[in-house]
């Protein structure tokens, strides 16, 4: 996929510019924090979406908040674009560098500043790994609820930027529901605190708009997160279905019964076939789809909920039902779901993970449409996803060494996202727009809506130097993509069946 950035600048200009920026940076951070030789900056050329690559002009790894302030002031003065980076696990190219810009790596901000079991809060630096927070809170029987599958690696700064979610989000909410306060540096080098350790803050809810803003509005330097008490018990039901639609109906049945499970995930037949040899979780390989449905809470609550959930699944036509009998078994049931991405990596030279959300009632129909696309594009696609909140993650298997395979994977992915919009959903549920889905933004939003997004961007970063060319497409870009003023019913692929 071609990296659609600014017009290339000539090598000499870049070299001169690079020397100027490096020299300036060395005045504000120690020498070992600045890198610019190709072998030094190569590791930063992409995030978790390696289809988009670009070498940054300079990489800087600040160690203190005041260095971040100085770096941003300097970049503003020299008009250099800045891209913040956490752990680089993003899947939409959000942390992809700018060829003429500074990549601001926040990895050295890795301290848990304070963990207060009495107030159930932790104050952490942005480079702290998601899982490290729960590990630090474990001795107090507390944990940090949002649990992206990448939680061993991804940083809380990246989670804030992406409003990351995970298996527990159906019941415990996304990052936005679990972060109390963010301290950030604006492109002017000023510090702003959004939210507070009280339950709200005066004025507009800037924290809510900052979370999920993909590094476009400011650089996070500190985060206060909410910790929640660990439930006494968790158990998971694994249920098999012989049609994806029946499985999707069973999901609706659970919600209709007034139950909000701690996690409700679906894997289709292709996914279990890929994953089972890898993890040996004991998945039913004959099922068209399996559901993993978790209950957590007091032992009494769990017993009551598991009984009700089992009842719903039985009435929905589940062909096999298993309830985890031990913690080890619960983890084994989840292992396949949690390792689906690496397993896909073994089954195919490359895979492309999409991320769209649809209303739950459309799950069955959209999965069938994806099966039809598999035939049309002559490609395999596995589905493992957050069924409880309609957040799909189709994994398109392809071969990056074959340009035709890449092109088909790209078109396949775009068609899925546009279908999500068509059925009342969105082009991204949790991975962000980044550079990857910028064209589909033109499909989901009108010109006026994109204008409003630009307005938000201007209010925080009037000069537009933070993470430029990402997330919010320019009008020219949408015109090029061929879709301005797209309304329902005038989308691409008119030949597709309408739901």
């Amino acid at each position, binding site marked *: 996929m071609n990296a659609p950035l600014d017009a290339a600048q000539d090598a000499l200009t870049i070299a001169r510019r690079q020397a100027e920026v490096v020299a300036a940076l060395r005045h504000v951070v120690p020498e070992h924090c600045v890198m610019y030789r190709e072998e030094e900056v190569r590791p930063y050329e992409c995030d978790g979406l390696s289809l988009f690559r670009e070498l940054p002009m300079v990489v800087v790894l600040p160690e203190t908040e005041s260095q971040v302030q100085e770096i941003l002031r300097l970049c503003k003065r020299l008009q250099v674009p800045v891209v913040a980076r956490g752990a680089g696990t993003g899947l939409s190219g959000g942390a992809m560098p700018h060829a003429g810009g500074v990549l601001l790596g926040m990895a050295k901000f890795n301290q848990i500043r304070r963990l207060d*079991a*009495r*107030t159930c809060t932790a104050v952490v630096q942005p480079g702290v790994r998601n899982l490290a927070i729960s590990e630090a809170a474990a001795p107090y029987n507390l944990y940090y609820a949002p649990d992206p599958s990448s939680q061993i690696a991804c940083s809380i700064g990246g989670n804030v930027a992406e409003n990351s979610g995970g298996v527990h989000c*159906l019941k415990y*909410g*996304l990052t*936005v*529901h679990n972060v109390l306060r963010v301290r950030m540096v604006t492109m002017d080098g000023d*510090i*702003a605190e*959004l939210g*507070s*350790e*009280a*339950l709200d*803050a*005066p*004025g*507009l*809810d*800037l924290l809510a*708009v900052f979370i*999920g803003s993909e590094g476009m509005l400011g650089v996070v330097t500190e985060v206060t997160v909410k910790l929640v*008490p660990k*439930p006494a018990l968790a158990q998971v039901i694994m249920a098999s279905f012989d049609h994806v639609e029946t499985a999707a109906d069973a999901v609706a049945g659970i*919600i*209709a019964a*007034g*139950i*909000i499970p701690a996690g409700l995930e679906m894997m289709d037949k292709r996914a279990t076939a890929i994953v089972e040899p890898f993890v040996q979780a004991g998945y039913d390989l004959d099922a068209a789809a399996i559901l993993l449905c978790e209950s957590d*809470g*007091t032992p*009494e609550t769990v*017993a*009551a909920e598991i009984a009700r959930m089992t009842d719903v699944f039985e009435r929905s036509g589940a062909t096999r039902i298993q309830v985890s009998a031990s913690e080890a078994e619960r983890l084994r049931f989840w292992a396949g779901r949690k390792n689906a991405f690496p397993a896909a990596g073994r089954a195919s030279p490359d895979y492309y993970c999409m991320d769209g*959300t649809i*209303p739950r009632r459309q799950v069955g129909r959209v999965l069938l449409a994806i099966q039809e696309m598999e035939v049309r594009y002559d490609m395999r696609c596995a589905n493992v996803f*957050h069924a409880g909140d*309609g*957040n799909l993650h189709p994994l398109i298997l392809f071969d990056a060494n074959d340009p035709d395979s890449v092109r088909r994977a790209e078109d396949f992915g775009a068609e899925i996202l546009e279908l999500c919009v068509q059925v*009342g*959903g*969105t082009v*991204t*549920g*949790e*991975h962000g*727009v980044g550079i990857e889905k910028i064209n589909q*933004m033109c499909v*989901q*939003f009108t010109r006026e809506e*994109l204008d*409003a*997004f630009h307005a*938000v*961007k201007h*209010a*925080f970063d*009037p000069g537009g130097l933070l993470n430029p060319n990402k*997330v919010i497409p320019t009008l020219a870009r949408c015109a090029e993509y061929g879709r301005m003023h797209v309304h329902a019913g005038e989308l691409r692929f008119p030949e597709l069946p309408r739901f």
Partner: protein
Amino acid sequence: MDSLLSDLRARVILAQASGKPVSIHGGGTKDFLGMKGTGTALDMSQYAGIVSYEPTELVVTARAGTTLVELESLLAENGQMLAFEPPHFGPGATLGGCIATGLSGPRRAAAGSARDFVLGVKLLDAHGRMLTFGGEVMKNVAGYDVSRILTGSLGMLGVMLEVSVKVLPRPERELTLRYAMLEAAAIERLAAWGAQPLPITASSWVAADGGGELRIRLSGSPSAVDSGRARLGGDVVPAAEADAWWQSLREQTLPFFAARPLWRVSVPPVTPPLALGDTVIEWNGGQRWVSTTQPAEAVRSAAAALGGHATLFRPESIDEARRVGVFHPLDPVVEGIHRRLKSEFDPQGIFNPGRMYSYL
């Protein structure tokens, strides 16, 4: 487009052209909050009705003028609720006013605030254009979350036409427990409970003869509520009395709330007693209603020193509100972002000018 909508658009376009502000109102129930409106009234109460409701999607979409009463009774028929338990402050309260003020009720500390439940908004902007942000799905990170920033914006960025909110199943059972306890002890007790997996979904402390009274509400499956009760002791409050209690707290019909001025002090929940004046505590200690004649600066600096802020929720008089401002002053960097947001969304300043801060 229906005639109500075209009328609203025409009025906004006219306001924009003439530079004459409009004062957006729903049911007029929260007129007391913030500074007085200065423009021509833009009445939203007729722009009402449920747009879509799909109980298994846990989402309801309604026009902004729909009353909370109508919305809540529809949800109740389906065993669901607005989990942030918004205060009405009168029978005419509308969904638009509820979201524009962003107020939440007793369940807030357990379930989240109004903004946590807003999934999407249709907005009429300063140019009379209709914009859609967010939608009806639970997870959505496409573009910036403008619907959440509209929550609590007091109508200063535009007119909300439709709102989609996430709803939740009503708990199977609820039970309220009561304890005789002083303020400091109640705050300690709430903090200790907060760090354990207990089904507490509301809490309050009020002064009472010779001390005070702590109440908590447990919600969940019958067995979870029973086991919570066994662990927590206390006296059971009869169901009807309990419902009336949480309602009178949410709607501020207790005699305590008649005091003027009435401050809302928002602090980290474990903060010890404020000693500013008579106090009612909610949200595990996070929300303190204070009746005091202390100067505004004293109340605000006390709140700020503790990591919180203070709102002059019900001023003694309009003059007082004008003199000291209703909302806590913003830090200069954050104020700058506010000013730019206002001028980007509403360059002519036609929407509820000065309602939140004089300069917006």
